[in-house]
């Protein structure tokens, strides 16, 4: 209820702001990555996935890359047929997360040599590794593409 949104502001504190989840979905609503940083049960996750798809896909290039979402907001960007969405607290820095997405996408692109949707499907277990290198516990862990890629290549070489 909107009343509680207000309460969010009264009691707002820095430490509650963090990424709640990261979703990669295609236009048809198929999830290509779901990374949760908050406890949700499976039904709730499914509901969130559907809601995010519904609010994001109706928007076009003239719209902002931000959508209010429940008591949070979604920062998203579309790359070809994929929507990269990050759900954060309403007080979080929109542009920092918007570029956080792009930074992540550039790493994926480099790592998979021109990443496409299928790379994320067949290598889903590696995508989690990339995410964990760059975002951990709902916070930004590492932003240097050079450092992340170096680490990923090192891991790639391990058997």
């Amino acid at each position, binding site marked *: 209820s909107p009343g509680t949104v207000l309460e969010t502001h009264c009691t707002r504190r820095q430490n*509650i702001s963090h990424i709640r989840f990261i979703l990669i979905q295609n236009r048809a609503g198929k999830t290509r990555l*779901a990374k949760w940083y908050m406890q949700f049960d499976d039904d709730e996750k499914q509901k969130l996935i559907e809601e995010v798809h519904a609010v994001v896909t109706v928007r076009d290039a003239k*719209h902002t890359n*931000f959508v209010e979402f429940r008591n949070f907001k979604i920062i998203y960007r579309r790359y070809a047929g994929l929507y990269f969405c990050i759900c954060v607290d309403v007080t979080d820095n929109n542009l920092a997360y918007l570029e956080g997405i792009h930074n992540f996408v550039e790493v994926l692109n480099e790592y998979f040599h021109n990443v496409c949707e299928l790379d994320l499907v067949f290598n889903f277990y590696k995508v989690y590794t990339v995410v964990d290198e760059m975002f951990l516990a709902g916070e930004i862990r590492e932003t240097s593409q050079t450092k992340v890629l170096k680490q990923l290549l090192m891991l790639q070489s*391990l*058997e």
Partner: protein
Amino acid sequence: MPAVSKGDGMRGLAVFISDIRNCKSKEAEIKRINKELANIRSKFKGDKALDGYSKKKYVCKLLFIFLLGHDIDFGHMEAVNLLSSNKYTEKQIGYLFISVLVNSNSELIRLINNAIKNDLSSRNPTFMCLALHCIANVGSREMAEAFAGEIPRILVAGDTMDSVKQSAALCLLRLYKASPDLVLMGEWTSRVVHLLNDQHMGVVTAAISLITCLSSKNPDEFKTCVSLAVSRLSRIVSSASTDLQDYTYYFVPAPWLSCKLLRLLQCYPPPEDGAVKGRLVECLETILNKAQEPPKSKKVQHSNAKNAILFEAISLIIHYDSEPNLLVRACNQLGQFLQHRETNLRYLALESMCTLASSEFSHEAVKTHIETVINALKTERDVSVRQRAADLLYAMCDRSNAKQIVAEMLSYLETADYSIREEMVLKVAILAEKYAVDYSWYVDTILNLIRIAGDYVSEEVWYRVIQIVINRDDVQGYAAKTVFEALQAPACHENMVKVGGYILGEFGNLIAGDPRSSPLVQFNLLHSKFHLCSVPTRALLLSAYIKFINLFPETKATIQEVLRSDSQIRNSDVELQQRAVEYLKLSSIASTDVLATVLEEMPPFPERESSILAKLKKKKGPGAVSVELEDGKERGELNGGGDRGGDAAIAASNASTPSPSADLLGLRSTAPVSGTTPSAGSLLVDVFSEAGPSATSAGVNDDGFLSSAPPTVASEDPAPPLPESDELLNKFVCKNNGVLFENQLLQIGIKSEYRQNLGRMYLFYGNKTSVQFVSFNTTVSCPGELQSQLNVQTKTVEPLVEGGAQVQQVINIECLTDFIDAPLLNIKFRYGGALQNISLKLPVTINKFFQPTEMAAADFFQRWKQLSQPQQEAQKIFKASHGMDTEVLKAKLLGLGTALLENVDPNPENYVCAGVIQTKAQQVGCLLRLEPNAQAQPGEQMYRLTLRSSKDTVSQRVCDLLAEQF
């Protein structure tokens, strides 16, 4: 095929994924999956031990199947096995499976923790990171218990690799958020703060999130971070665009770290140290200057990164609210963005300016952009941008521009998106009232509001206009005239009929001199709407009619005729029928004097703030907000802390309509309607209640409109325990875990463990809704003599429970001596503004402190005989309320905490048990015998329960508790 499927590519997995992708239907997919599951199951069950590669492949397939949305109920053990592999790829899949699929309650947690422990001590940075990521992803209490002590050590150790430090910092953050009581920073504080100086920017980036969280909780302990953050920021801001190499993003040096540093500073007031403050102001000026420089790249990434820092800097400037120069510069910068071609920037500028409008230093500067903002409200394509524009107009409104802004908002309302209409309506209503110089403008505005957006006008709004009209005799005639005109419209909103009915009923006489609005014309106009209205409105109209009879005796016959008609006097709605009957009677038998007394003009409402403002005041504590909101500061508050304009308004409408559940909790025990005449009986109260017939809407009325006391004051004290709390208590006599309580909002789960005379109970408070609980507070108390019998200690819980989240509370219990009563648990929180207040009995019963005692038959009977004094025995004979299933009975007796002694009682049907109750003062040996007559017909089955112990109170209490269990 993907580019990176070298080395570790799992062919079988790729083939399987291809197969799934090629499935033409859901059925085909399920078939293929079932085939695969059968295959994997047989491999896992097979005699041949699987090699690491196969295990990895199958676990990975299971994970894929799970991510497709299918349940996976096996393979966990194999995944755990992978953790101890020394191959990275196998370990990684194991950890991934666990992070995604294993919930914190899993029995495997011990094995998992063991593997994590090994990896943490392996000194292999790759393995350490995997283990830390797993902890950060799962973040369970068990993991916090196992590792909260170890991770700070890893974080600050001199020989820890940078990447491990990054993971350790965020891992610790996760554990701190989940179980703050277990993460003790004490001795590490200073070394953690100094990570802000670390050479490695990645370490700083990760560590600062941890430091920000810790600082916001313990600002004093971490305040040294301020100067460190300022100098780090200063170094970044003054560096050239290529200095930071890896950490330069599209020519912007370390944008994310800069934002995080600026955000950390927002946990603190401006630095006291002049040098530090000077340096910080310099940084902020540099950031503002850079915004004016020509861009180093045309790429949007460049400007986004740069502006991310700029907006964060502006947030800090607003947070300090002490540097007029910076505030005005920030405002000018945002003003430029208002016209930027990037929608994102326009949106963010509107949002940020909204908070600037609340600062006395920048309020005037914000006002200069009014035309741009109005234009945005009219022309922006994205509704969320228009919404921000509306918020900003609201925030920048003061006496000087109120008429313009209200007019613009009203005209926007005609075409506004449905999603924001209600909020807009509230904003208009608030502004119209707040800045009304002449009340005819106010009345016009509100009636326009009802005309344009009647569906979105909450009760709150039309109650308020009536309240004001009643209290201002200079506007009553105007109001009657205006509303009379508004009602002429062929289709007018029901809310207009309500306002019309009320105002004409009270003040119709003021315009009755004009033949165009003679009493009968007024009545006919109102009555022409009657049949289109809902029951509550009709009820209100009936009240208006009886008032007409008093005001205009010449209408009496006509109105009596109406009341007497079958459609009124035999109305199927009880309330309407009753009103018709009573009003008819009243008008027939009461003398003119009596009628005039009964239907006297409503007395003025006690002068008080609009409930919208009352809500704000309550938020800030009495005295913090004056009613006359002239200066900028308070405008900010109206604006919900400055971020989102309409929240306050919406919250206000919420405040006046408590949910039905709130009503059940006794919120209606507020002061009765004030100001009615002394002779007023219940009928009178009824006559004057505008909200209509049903009990619930009358309740709404009491709370929001007619009573000045805040509705929740009456129930701030802990509520008495729920009637069912004894029953709930009984549920837990023989078990330690389960759900203690559940309603529509809240679920409380319990896990408890006891050893000797000590117990630890974990309470899990789950927010079942999708919105936050605030002011969440729980207290445990020991009433009466229990105080000296039990020692109960609790840690306070976080005052905020996110929607869908669960918070945990630990309760430590020490049994000093035997006891009978249970401790009381009181839970209070606000949900959507309404106070919830629940009291329960905490299921701590004397039997929890049993130590089972095994003994042979001879021993048992010897002790039994020793305890033969009459007061040492307690006995009950009672009917079985459940079946007499042997296994169930045994399980219950074991759950009681005693040892169940086999082959002791000569009658095999009987059960005997023995245990010692451990209290700090003494130990009480206790023997038990339960004799069922299992052969009896169902319905006549009985038990005889006998307890003997060395203490009479114990025998009695255990007997009482146990008798409820069968």
